[in-house]
């Protein structure tokens, strides 16, 4: 089967274009981050990968050292990591962060 397959490693310039090949019908299926699949036009999420090969990436935010507005930047990071933001994230297919 391997010779018959063509691995395409191109990435979309914008999140919605990551799955353009699938949307156009040029690509049969594509593995990617669920939160990008659900916002891409012309594609369906067939489902999450099964547990054995699933891999969840933990996303985090940081303040850039050269920031001229570190307090406001900190406020934004607090806002997007707040419990109310967690509800929005969950509703859009993100996995909750384990806060200890």
């Amino acid at each position, binding site marked *: 089967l391997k010779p018959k397959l063509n*691995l395409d490693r191109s990435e979309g310039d914008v999140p919605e274009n990551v799955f353009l090949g699938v949307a156009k019908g040029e690509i049969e*299926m594509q593995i990617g*981050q669920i939160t990008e699949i659900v916002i891409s036009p012309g594609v369906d*999420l067939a489902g999450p990968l099964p547990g054995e090969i699933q891999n969840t*990436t*933990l996303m985090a935010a*940081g303040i850039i050292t050269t920031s001229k507005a570190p307090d406001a930047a900190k406020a934004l990071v607090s806002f997007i*990591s707040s419990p109310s*933001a967690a509800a929005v994230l969950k509703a859009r297919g993100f996995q909750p962060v384990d806060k200890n």
Partner: protein
Amino acid sequence: MWHAQNLERLEALMNALRIAIAALALTAAMRTGGTADAAEIRVLSSGSLKAALSQLLPDFQKSSGDTATIEYGPAGAIVGRVQNDDAADVVIVSRSQLQKLESNGKVVQGSLVDIAGIALGLAVHKGARRNRISAMSRRSNGPCSRPGRSGTAIRRPVQRPAFIQRACWNGSALHRI
């Protein structure tokens, strides 16, 4: 008598007016204060966060009075921009990528905050017959040595329908089918 009553009414009206003016002045002062302190924040984020940030950022702007602009890109490209000192205030990528930026001095020590986890899924053409994803795990070949990344696509085989026989997994992409 008539005169006294009218005076009382006038006084009550004046009092109400004073309170209203004071309230207005307070609101104006708060607005002015807010505007004076309002910051403009530039965010660089992995595109995988767009589904949520497209709502959360406008919410933040409303509640804080600050202006937040955001640019999305592949996480690797975002890391490269921060590494090259692209002027911005907040960077959102994977925790491991952030830790590298932190140790390189590009991100403030101790400023890392976890946002959410993102799991992998299989995208198919809209309305397409769903492939049997469970077949993957049964035939999985375990971890592999070659690096990969998400967004890897498997093009249609020439004759046979796409059917995953053997797969190895390196954490972000499926290799060797």
